[in-house]
């Protein structure tokens, strides 16, 4: 939180809740600085040995078993999926819980009040924090990647490393877009722990990280295709197995388009959440 005050102090005062008022230019630098400080605050908060060891211990069992299941099988495509997909699945598991609860947690902690009095839009602050969480989550995800490599016993031959790297970055973007939607959604719906908890393992089935969504029964397959993660993962597998570049591009295009839709929906939900809190006047006491 400490990062937001300097932004407010250094810039000329505009109307609360409408930072562009009184200025022709969008105030991108202060926003970027606020986002960066939010990011840093969240990373510093999470970088404790207990917060790192717990997820590492928790991801070991599924990593070992899934790597064994895929690595000792006859289907090389399964290895291509689990090779990268398990790390992304680990990010899903932790991210959906931590980012999904982030806004509600701010309200419970009483820090939402402070965020709403700064001139930086709430979604930007929360996005900075979400990226901080993703940076933290990447530690157990990296660990899971090495466990999968070790236990799986074989690595897929990668057709295009640059394409794979771009595809992985895009998959992380897809993850952030999906997780971030749940921050205002969980807050508005006043949902209990169970709602988010059920989404955690469900990610193993519907995100397409561990196997093609085509294996799912039709209704679930349709639902899975509405997630940018399934398209992003499809691009990862194509870049490993040497799929046509046009197909990889198409996957990226659809994934990015879905990310954009999610982003718009997320901002709209943040607006609803903020309006509701202001109207009710119950800052931090929801």
């Amino acid at each position: 939180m400490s990062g937001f005050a300097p932004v407010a102090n250094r810039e000329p005062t505009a109307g609360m809740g409408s930072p562009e008022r009184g200025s022709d230019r969008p105030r991108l630098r202060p926003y970027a600085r606020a986002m960066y400080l939010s990011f840093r605050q969240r990373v510093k908060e999470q970088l404790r040995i207990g917060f790192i060891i717990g997820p590492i211990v928790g991801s070991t069992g599924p990593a070992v078993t899934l790597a064994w299941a895929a690595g000792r099988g006859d289907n090389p495509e399964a290895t291509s999926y689990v090779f990268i997909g398990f790390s992304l699945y680990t990010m899903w598991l932790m991210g959906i819980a931590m980012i999904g609860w982030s806004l509600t947690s701010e309200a419970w902690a009483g820090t939402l009040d402070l965020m709403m009095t700064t001139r930086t839009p709430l979604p930007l602050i929360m996005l900075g924090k979400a990226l901080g969480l993703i940076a933290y989550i990447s530690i157990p995800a990296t660990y899971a990647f090495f466990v999968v490599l070790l236990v799986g016993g074989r690595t897929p031959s990668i057709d295009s490393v640059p394409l794979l790297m771009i595809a992985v970055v895009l998959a992380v973007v897809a993850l952030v877009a999906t997780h971030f939607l749940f921050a205002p959604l969980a807050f508005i719906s006043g949902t209990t722990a169970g709602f988010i908890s059920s989404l955690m393992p469900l990610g193993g089935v519907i995100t397409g990280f561990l196997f093609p969504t085509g294996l799912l029964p039709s209704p679930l397959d349709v639902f899975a295709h509405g997630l940018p993660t399934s398209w992003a993962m499809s691009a990862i597998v194509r870049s490993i197995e040497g799929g046509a570049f046009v197909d990889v591009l198409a996957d990226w295009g659809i994934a990015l388009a879905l990310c954009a839709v999610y982003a718009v929906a997320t901002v709209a939900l943040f607006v609803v959440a903020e309006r509701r809190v202001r109207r009710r006047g119950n800052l931090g006491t929801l």
Partner: protein
Amino acid sequence: MLRNFYIQSVCSYKALFNWLNWPAFVAVIIVTPSVYVAMFGLMGRFARDEATAAAFIIGMTANGVAQNLSGGVIQSLTNERYGGTLPFLFASRGSRLMMFLSRGMLHVPTAAMSLAACLLTATLLLGADLGPANWTAVLACYAMMAVSGMCFALCGGNLAMSISSFNFIYYGMMSFFFILTGAIIPRSELPGVLRLAGEVMPVTHALEGSRKAYEGSGIGSIAGDIGLEALVALGYVVVGYAMFRVIETFQRRTGAYDE
């Protein structure tokens, strides 16, 4: 005495079990184990073949029974500490063995709901063929898994009362269940030490029995597996109860109920 045991079981279950509200209960007890069954079943089908998928499904139904039950029991013991009721527990003159066992008792029926959800997922979503199963034997195996899972969780839950880290202990136990019990990785493929560790894990022996029972074996031919599972459960009760008393003695001596 039985009435006291019943009251303690009910009260501790209602007061200390965080997932005892419908959204959390459905998500954690019903949805989560079902999703794991689906995830590993589909992975088995994708990476290997139908037979492997069926083996994974049976393994994950067993894990589904024990894992969530363990979570509930460990949570109850953790909450004794967080809720500040531990000093009262240790100050009372009641039977310590009764206190210890009552913290896990009502989580056993909860495990039955997880099992039902897992089996429904296996048959309806994954189309698993459970036709040849001898259901009496299968259910006997699952019941034994639930009991031994509870005893294991009570034993491990002692750690939650003393080192205050639910997540670390719960996720650690989950990893043990995944790797050591033979649910996914056949124990014959585990390195020697891990194979040995699997021998004393809950679920392991009853799971072997349940695999035979799913193929039609009767209760007589799996009695040995059930007996071994019961022995493992008894071992955890003995060790767990001893730990419980040691922790009580230590905390009485140091007055450190929250450190």
